[in-house]
């Protein structure tokens, strides 16, 4: 049995995992990073559009600050987010951008003087200030009051990931590629690392660590069509779930991105609309202003996706052999802009559709894109129930996005959560309490158990199942019955059918009998795990009888703050269960900085909680009193909701802006 010891084990080599690893290493702790693919190939690279941070350098970002970013994020989440976490996040995001700028990301910069932009289908001239020349610029994204999304052309994620991985290489961080974490090693409510499988040789290795962080991204691939990379199968969440102790939060909160190309589901960035692109229907008619007169194409993602489906249901979709779709028209932006700032979009259209987007509209349709849910953690990123288990980035639910994530907040979250979590993990590793005291006997038990599971998959069985049909069935159930619009009947069907699939999946037999590099084998155990996650999503959606953010119930149109202002927690305490255990965690209105209100889309359909008004009055009163004493915005914020004591010291400083200089 091979056993490797380290201080911190990070599972996942995307932006979140890498930033967590570098942070821990900087604090002097040893770290090993396990990843399915070379870190630079992680799905983080696919983030084309940008990263939100309130730098406010460009003219349309002027006046921006943490407060506005915070309000946008909370409203976007439909009040599902943890407001402490959101505050920590908005304060750290500008620092993250600036750190990355020093590490080598060539952020697109402000150019002084006049430039043309397309706003609301009209050409507008914007003028940039002299003193902002050369600072990091930003573009417009959905659901934001200011232009706040910083970017590198349309390869933001790529350039960030490369700079980050280069930094990790400089720091000589140990990376073990093509290693898949198979099970978490735990005893008495504490996590001690993981059993991992080498995907090239099939060898099982036990990694023992004081702290284990899961940064494996989302679980979009439980859907038949997803913008996610094929490795986004939610295996991080699944192994946490399989401990029986750790919980998953808000698994039903699934975001659909409005503009993925048809049929393959590859994303075209929100930057297309941010830069002025339009959505049109079968008649070439721009329909979004009819539904959302104010934000139009740049409403929040969940809203635009739903409006698109509504419009297609009215028969205004474009018929194709792959089903209905709509058009994303960016021809208005001009060839030069497309070839410079949206080149990846052009590349994708040319390669996969044979369409030149400078001349023709792009066929698009809302497609599964992001998992707001994940391993439920506290603000430190640590599981609420399994000590020593951490999670960051999309894999986690700490909970920044609530029931809908704003575009540009995900890449920002990966880095910020990695930064903050690294400090908390390092603090923990500095304590006596973190020392490891488990026996090799326990380690062997975990390794043997995984080996036995693998052996069992290869064993000949009667009425053997094969993994692919089960997987396809699951994917289609999720698409058809747990999609953008949901209802009781479909969800109940989905839950029942998924349960049957899960039971059948226990009888999978792998025909190709080798334990080495064998795609059939890893597909088999992953399908078993994906089915558990799918059940968490479907069951969570069934039980949440309200509409909140991306979770839209046709039979419960209202957002119900009275009964459902809470987080869904799913767990799997007994491995013989065929259904997750669901509990709820209330979201406390009394401590909110921004109490629940109307989000500003369509007509207000909220079943309000009386506490919302009480808290709003309280907040207004504090604000009024302090404003009378001419307190600044930091003092007012702190009086309403103190969060700074939870933020690591390193990241507690104020952020400098052109009009908000720091004293020397």
């Amino acid at each position: 049995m091979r056993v490797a010891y380290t201080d911190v084990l990070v599972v996942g080599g995307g932006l979140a995992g890498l930033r967590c690893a570098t942070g821990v290493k900087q604090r002097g702790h040893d770290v090993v990073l396990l990843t399915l693919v070379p870190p630079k190939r992680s799905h983080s690279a696919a983030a084309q559009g940008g990263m939100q941070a309130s730098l406010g350098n460009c003219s349309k970002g002027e006046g921006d600050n943490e407060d506005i970013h915070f309000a946008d994020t909370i409203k976007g989440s439909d009040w599902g987010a943890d407001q402490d976490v959101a505050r920590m996040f908005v304060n750290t995001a500008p620092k993250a951008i600036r750190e990355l700028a020093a590490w080598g990301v060539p952020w697109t910069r402000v150019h002084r003087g006049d430039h043309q932009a397309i706003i609301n289908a009209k050409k507008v001239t914007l003028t940039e200030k002299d003193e902002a020349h050369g600072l990091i610029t930003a573009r417009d994204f959905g659901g934001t009051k200011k232009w706040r999304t910083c970017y590198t052309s349309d390869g933001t994620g790529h350039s960030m990931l490369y700079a980050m991985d280069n930094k990790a290489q400089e720091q000589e961080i140990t990376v073990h590629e093509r290693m898949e974490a198979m099970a978490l090693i735990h005893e008495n409510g504490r996590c001690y690392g993981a059993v991992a499988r080498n995907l090239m040789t099939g060898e099982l290795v036990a990694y023992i660590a004081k702290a284990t962080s899961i940064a494996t991204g989302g679980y979009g691939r439980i859907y038949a069509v997803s913008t996610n990379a094929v490795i986004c199968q939610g295996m991080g969440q699944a192994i946490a779930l399989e401990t029986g102790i750790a919980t998953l939060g808000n698994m039903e909160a699934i975001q659909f991105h409005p503009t993925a190309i048809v049929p393959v589901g590859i994303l075209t960035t929100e930057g297309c609309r941010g830069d002025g692109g339009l959505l049109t229907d079968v008649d070439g008619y721009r329909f979004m202003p009819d539904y959302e007169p104010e934000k139009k194409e740049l409403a929040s993602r969940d809203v635009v996706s739903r409006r698109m489906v509504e419009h297609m249901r009215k028969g205004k979709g474009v018929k194709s052999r792959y089903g209905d779709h709509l058009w994303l028209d960016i021809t208005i932006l001009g060839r030069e802009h497309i070839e410079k700032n949206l080149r990846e979009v052009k590349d994708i259209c040319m390669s996969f559709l044979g369409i030149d987007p400078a001349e023709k509209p792009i066929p698009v349709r809302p497609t599964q894109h992001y998992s707001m849910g994940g391993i439920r953690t506290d603000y430190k990123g640590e599981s609420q129930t399994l000590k020593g288990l951490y999670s960051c980035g999309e894999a986690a639910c700490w909970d920044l996005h609530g029931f809908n994530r704003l575009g540009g907040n995900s890449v920002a979250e990966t880095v910020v959560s990695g930064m903050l979590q690294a400090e908390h993990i390092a603090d923990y590793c500095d304590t006596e309490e973190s020392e490891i005291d488990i026996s090799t006997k326990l380690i062997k038990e975990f390794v043997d158990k995984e080996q036995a599971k693998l052996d069992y998959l290869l064993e000949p069985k009667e009425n053997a199942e094969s993994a692919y049909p089960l997987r396809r069935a699951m994917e289609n159930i999720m698409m058809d019955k747990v999609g953008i619009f949901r209802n009781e009947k479909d969800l109940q069907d989905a839950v029942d059918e998924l349960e049957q699939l899960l039971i059948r999946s226990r009888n999978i037999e792998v025909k190709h009998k080798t334990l080495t590099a064998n795609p059939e084998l890893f597909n088999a155990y992953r399908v078993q795990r994906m089915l558990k996650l799918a059940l968490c999503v479907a069951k969570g959606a069934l039980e949440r009888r309200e509409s909140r953010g991306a979770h839209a119930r046709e039979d419960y149109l209202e957002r119900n703050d009275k009964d459902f202002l809470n987080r869904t927690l799913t767990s799997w305490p007994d491995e013989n269960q065929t259904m997750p255990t669901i509990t709820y965690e209330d979201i406390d209105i009394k401590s909110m900085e921004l109490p629940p209100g109307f989000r500003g889309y369509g007509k207000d359909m909220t079943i309000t909680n009386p506490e919302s008004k009480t808290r709003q009055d309280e907040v207004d009163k504090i604000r009024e009193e302090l404003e009378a004493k001419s307190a600044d915005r930091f003092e007012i914020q702190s009086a309403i909701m103190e969060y700074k004591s939870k933020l690591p010291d390193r990241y507690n400083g104020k952020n400098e802006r052109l009009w908000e200089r720091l004293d020397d």
Partner: protein
Amino acid sequence: MTNETPRLLKISILRYNPQIPEVKPSVETYELEEGDGMTLFIALNEIRERFDPSLKFDFVCRAGICGSCSMLINGKPTLACRTLTANLDEEINLAPLPLFELIGDLSIHTGNWMRGLNERLEAWIHEEDQKEVDFDRLEEKMEPALAEEIYETDRCIECGCCVAGCGTALMRNDFVGAVGLNKIARFRLDPRDKRDDSDYYDIIGDEDGIFGCMSLMGCEDSCPKELPLQSKLAYLRRKMVVMKDEK
């Protein structure tokens, strides 16, 4: 194509599993009905699902941005995920990229090769001293045009097509290849990297570096991202030739 009968593709794949050396390498041919807008990503997955679930290949983003799926398609290195079968003949030959360690069938270990390269080139920003970034303050300014130029060279996805297409790299395995030289060109442009030309010379100023390049142009012609490799290499070569040591 919509109304015609779809073509029958004959996809031949070079198969070998180094973990099972007693089974010799062989070419297996699979027949597949072509679908509308079919890419090799779709075709290979269909083969795996319908004919042989043990077929090994690598896809991650399947959108041409992660660089995982490079392979020899009819002898030419390129990304499989964005290769439309409609642009190929009915008979398609697939083989793993040469030069890299073979994991099995079409799956290769580019990660460790690229990691070794990055370490050798020290492909990261070298700050003057190891001072921490003061991220509370305004970031350092950079000319917008320069930022764009840096991004232009930063677009490399480490897919390995350039080195697999380079006769020099295949003959001389220590040659850094265009992927490495382009990285040096990228850091050389970047004012945040404090290394000077004599430092860069010490990294790539030999026959395994820029002076090993024989301008075969396999890199430029194989790059799926269409990076201006020819131009960048020429520029670097000129700078390295005129370089004078400070002392």
